[in-house]
């Protein structure tokens, strides 16, 4: 318990937050890297997911991608980008995290758009909507819950994984854990762990609320939603809760 109380003392010392390279700096770096990575992944994955989903093609490829990505250790990805010609530092970390965020966004976007009822689309076309209108006014709202879930999963994973970057020389809050471990100062280590975990939970909470707010239809808070029971013997959809961290 001594280590825990030392961690609390560490977290309560304002100096540890405000000094250069203190908690505030590291947290901002952490959030910055994560945000850029998630945005980059969205730029790549959303159009591809929408295109494949509306065409209802490429299911095999998406499943394979989401499964393989689960098997690749993120630590390996982070390290490989750092020793590639991209070089070491936050750029390599950001690219690795973006690569890692693509599968969950792509998979969920694909599944979301593919799941739109064909008759609904046909009806919208029959009412004289253009392709773009069908996409924006019919398919997007219907697919939005799954798309939002995908982005949320990816974002939480990225925030969590950005902590690993410190193991291979990157920045962010993981550096506190590494530092505490290197100095055998478990107080700092626990403080870092609490901060990283807290940031990940905060991201989840924030994005869950956000996706709830933008999703049309009956407004029920995520934790109050009724769960539909799956059919017997059905294999879970490839909506990848994804590679953890």
């Amino acid at each position, binding site marked *: 318990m001594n280590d825990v109380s030392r961690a609390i003392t560490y977290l309560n010392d304002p100096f540890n937050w405000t000094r250069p390279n203190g908690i505030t700096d590291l947290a901002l770096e952490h959030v910055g890297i994560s945000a850029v990575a998630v945005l980059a992944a969205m730029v790549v994955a959303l159009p591809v997911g929408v295109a494949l989903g509306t065409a209802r093609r490429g299911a095999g490829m998406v499943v394979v991608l989401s499964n393989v990505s*689960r*098997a*690749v250790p993120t630590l390996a990805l982070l390290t*490989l980008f750092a*020793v590639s010609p991209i070089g070491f530092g936050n750029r390599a970390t950001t690219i690795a995290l973006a690569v890692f965020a693509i599968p969950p966004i792509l998979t969920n976007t694909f599944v979301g758009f593919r799941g739109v009822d064909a008759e609904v689309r046909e009806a919208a076309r029959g009412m004289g909507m253009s392709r773009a209108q069908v996409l924006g006014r019919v398919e997007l709202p219907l697919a939005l819950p799954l798309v939002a879930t995908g982005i949320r999963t990816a974002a939480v994973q990225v925030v*969590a994984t950005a902590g690993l970057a410190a193991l291979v*020389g990157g920045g962010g809050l993981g550096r506190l854990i590494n530092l505490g471990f290197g100095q055998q100062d*478990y107080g700092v280590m626990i403080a870092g762990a609490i901060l*990283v975990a807290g940031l990940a939970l905060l991201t989840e909470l924030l994005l869950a609320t956000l996706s709830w707010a933008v999703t049309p239809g009956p407004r029920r808070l995520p934790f109050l939603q009724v769960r539909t029971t799956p059919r017997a013997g059905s294999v879970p959809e490839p909506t990848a809760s994804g590679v953890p*961290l």
Partner: protein
Amino acid sequence: MTSLGTRPLLDAVSDPAVGLLAVDEAPNPWFDPSYVTDNWDSILTYTGEHVRLTVLAVVIGAAVALPLALLARRSRYLSAPVLGLSTVVYTIPSLALFALLVPFTGLSSNTVLIGLVAYSLVILVRNFLAGLQGVPADVREAARGMGLSAAQTFWRVDLPLALPAFMAGLRIATVSTVALTTVGVLVGHGGLGQLITGGFAANFYRAEIVTGAVGCVLLALLADVLLAGAERALTPWARAVRA
């Protein structure tokens, strides 16, 4: 002890410029067969640790997850917190979880094992519960009507019907546990992850890093294929229907 395995890492990290120079000067192939043959023994040792941690984590996880899933199916009031809690656990970064455990369990492989069990549990409970909930209620009622006891119903009705979902859960849990084990390098018990950070610390030696990374992926694929084979062997009726 092995904790020192991560120390050089910090030194290499503190002075990136030196490391970068070294990368440019020395020949640094992405893959080097002679590295693999020269270090075969240590690679085998790390692979062994990796496999041991993964198998133990999934087996313990499954042993704990099954009763939890059975309990959660009994009542809605239990299933909501079980699923909610599993979401929360999944959100906690592995590095943070291992770091939180270190002061209590030390630099042993138990630290890694406890963390891995927690994550595999999350996946397994969800899939087990989904499988059990997918068993049609009228089928279970028919089983009861035929005079099967609760245990008999479980073994002869629930288990076979939920088996595909169980196996899907086991496969996901195993594959992601293989990937997660690498994070154990924090306490010096990361299996093949040791090679990844070891190569990083040794002047960014690419051959070692790639060997570790490729080893992990191969291990995950092998485990997946084995479990898929087991599923096929355990569910002969699925093939009979299709044929």
